[in-house]
């Protein structure tokens, strides 16, 4: 990768991530978050976005790491649209729009600091996989 322009850099739980801007539909402050019992931790809840049901994902949990704090009203979120799915990633902070380079096998921003480039398609597929595993399991007696 020579250079990747137009990525949005953000922080969740002290970790810096980036997503290509073309997948980002909007950056919002979450409304009331309704918990979805029986769903995996990757799904932090659902929110009302312009009258539609917006699933809010916990990136760390989707990536198989320890889940972050639960999504709450007023939290920042990136609304992504990919693979026919609209969903939100809860974020602590949106930093800036930047260009990324590859340096010594790591992806770094203009300042040379490393960060994790997320593939929204992969995030959605993994989340869907996790939700499917839980959602269609035989109910417990």
């Amino acid at each position: 990768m020579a250079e990747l322009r137009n990525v949005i850099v953000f922080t969740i739980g002290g970790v810096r991530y980036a997503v290509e801007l073309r997948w980002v539909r909007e950056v919002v402050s979450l409304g009331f978050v309704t918990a979805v019992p029986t769903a995996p931790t990757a799904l932090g809840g659902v929110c009302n976005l312009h009258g539609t049901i917006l699933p809010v994902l916990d990136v760390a949990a989707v990536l198989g790491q320890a889940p972050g704090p639960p999504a709450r009203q007023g939290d920042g979120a990136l609304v992504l649209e990919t693979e026919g799915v609209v969903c939100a990633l809860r974020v602590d902070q949106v930093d800036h729009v930047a260009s990324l380079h590859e340096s010594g096998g790591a992806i770094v921003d203009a300042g040379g600091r490393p960060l994790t480039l997320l593939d929204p398609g992969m995030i959605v597929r993994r989340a869907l996989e996790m939700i499917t595993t839980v959602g269609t399991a035989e109910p417990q007696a």
Partner: protein
Amino acid sequence: MSDGELDFDADELAMLRQLFRDEAKDALETVTTRVLAGGSAKPTPDALTEMMRVTHTLKGAAGTVGLNTMVDLSHRLESALASFGREPSPWTPATADLLVEVTDALRAYLDVATEPTGDAVADTIRDRIDQIARPNRRPMSLPPPFVEPPPEPVIEPALDGAPVPETKAWLRVEPERIDELMSSAGELLFDRTRIERRVQLLRTLARDLARTRQNLHDALDTPDVPSRAALGEAESELAGQAALLSQTTAALLDEIEALRRTIGELQKSLTRIRMGPARDLMTHAARTLRALRRATGARVELRTIGEETEFDKAVAEQLVDPITQLLRNAVAHGVEPPEERAAKGKPATATVTIRARQDGNLLVLEVSDDGRGIDTAALRERLVSTGQWSAARAELANDPEILDALLGSGVSVRDDADELAGRGIGIGLVRQTVSRLGGEVKVSSMPGRGTTFSLRLPLSTALAQAMLFKVGGQVYAIPNVHVIDTTLVDALATTASVRHEQLPVLRLDALLGHSSAADRRPGVVVSFAGKSLVCTVDKIIGPREIIIKPLGPLLAPLTLYAGATISGSGKIQLILDPAQLVRRAYPDAPDAAISDAGSAPMVLAGRALVIDDSRAIREAMTSMLGREGWIVDVAEDGARALQMTRQLRYDLIVTDLEMPELGGFDLIVHLRKDERFKTTPIVIITSRANPEHRRRARDLGVLALVAKPITRRKLLEALATR
């Protein structure tokens, strides 16, 4: 292609083409909007994909209704769009304008497609599309528009002229329905004016009262004893004011009542805007059945009943696939081959009946065949042999439960299921679709006599009645169709007695991950597919009208939820799927208490025919018998009933005595002469039962004579004597 080669009659073709025109205009509008959104720039890959998709759909639809020139034009347009995505792209800054021009022209062409002038118009459009795809060969100046704009369409008064930023699904509305709305809105204005006038009067009255009080105060304030005259004057003023006050209040109440009525009308008109007759859906079904007949050679007739039944147009659209699936299923599994039918003494040609009717707040759509019925023993074996059910569970399940399994999974009825009906998987999708719409599916079947799939849906998807309650601080909903009662349950009870039945208790707090410590808790009694249970909750909020929203693809696998709704304050409330609650309350484990509960409603009783000249009574009997597990057909008089009995056998006849055409006794005399109805139970419902009637009834072997008004209890008592 000439119309003669198509498998439609003229009326049908005209209607289908009208539907196609509407659909095609929407599709073309989508292309226009996408192009306009990009200015003169080349559309984004996503936009191009979308434009190609709708154009492709257009091509397919045009072929179905035999508009071959339109097929060709859409094909060329699709190719042109595809070429923009390739390198080098033929897109030039002028292309956007040309595309808009072409889509406009195509829209206009749709109105003249079948007229003599159509071909010339098509030729011009064809050249123009080819020029777009190869811009170097086209002249740089734009010739004047080559198609006269079509006359204003009569059907869509609300749509023209309004700015349409983004093309989405449009609702086509009859002008009279808009008129109704306008008139209600006008009425509202009058109501408001009248009420305002009364309020003005009340204000004046309040001022008068203050003045009278002041006068009284002044009179009492004097050092002397107040004069009788002054007090008398104040008293008579007060009397007048009190009378005026009570008059005004009464008038105000009347006016508020009028306002309430107007608002009711307005709501009704608004709902009606979304409604359309079931006819379109049935026409679609007829077309599907024709195609199936051609593909399989099966001899099947379609009978449609209740084409005038009105329901939500959005619901109708969603029902196309389920109905198609059910028809396929009927043709592939339901009906026997002609030889087999002949051997059983049935007419060689099978009949599939689609019936739409309104039952209170529900739309009921039934697809029934007069075929072999579902072999529950075979189905039971398949459930076990495919490992979907344990042997113990299959052993304990009763027939309705076994039939219900057909809707829940990929089990097929016949071993040699062919591709036509998708191996039963499609039947599961029927339930999914209908559940998503807030309704439910029931299947009932009689060996050798036929199968009925009954889809019960809320009349409108926009507004559904739901029971709202709180669990763990969050509000949840269950569609009211499935809520039969509320009750109180002891905290530790695993079953609860509701209406003399022991029902399993499902602790929603545990299921939804919040435990509650209360001693006695409210319970919502839920019933689905003939099984009932009590769900304990923290607090019942009560029935509300909600708008059901889909959960979207990411959340769809969470089968516990059927959808969500958004509260007045913008919070999302989850809707629980009653089917899943039932599954959790009746787990696989064999349990005597649970299998006993299955003896409740919805054991299939048979097929009944109700004959009465009052529609209200027919509807009432249909609903009463339906709840007892009967498949009910109705007739408005004896003559019609006699016709129906020639085609179908019935296991119960319920008839009125006095009817136009053929009275009840004459009907029974005819029926008793027919070998098939010699011993069929017959119940007479009548408002006049004299001894002579009773004697004749006894002679004709009538089961019971029930006096109107009919109640459920009287009916059940009569049936119990069978």
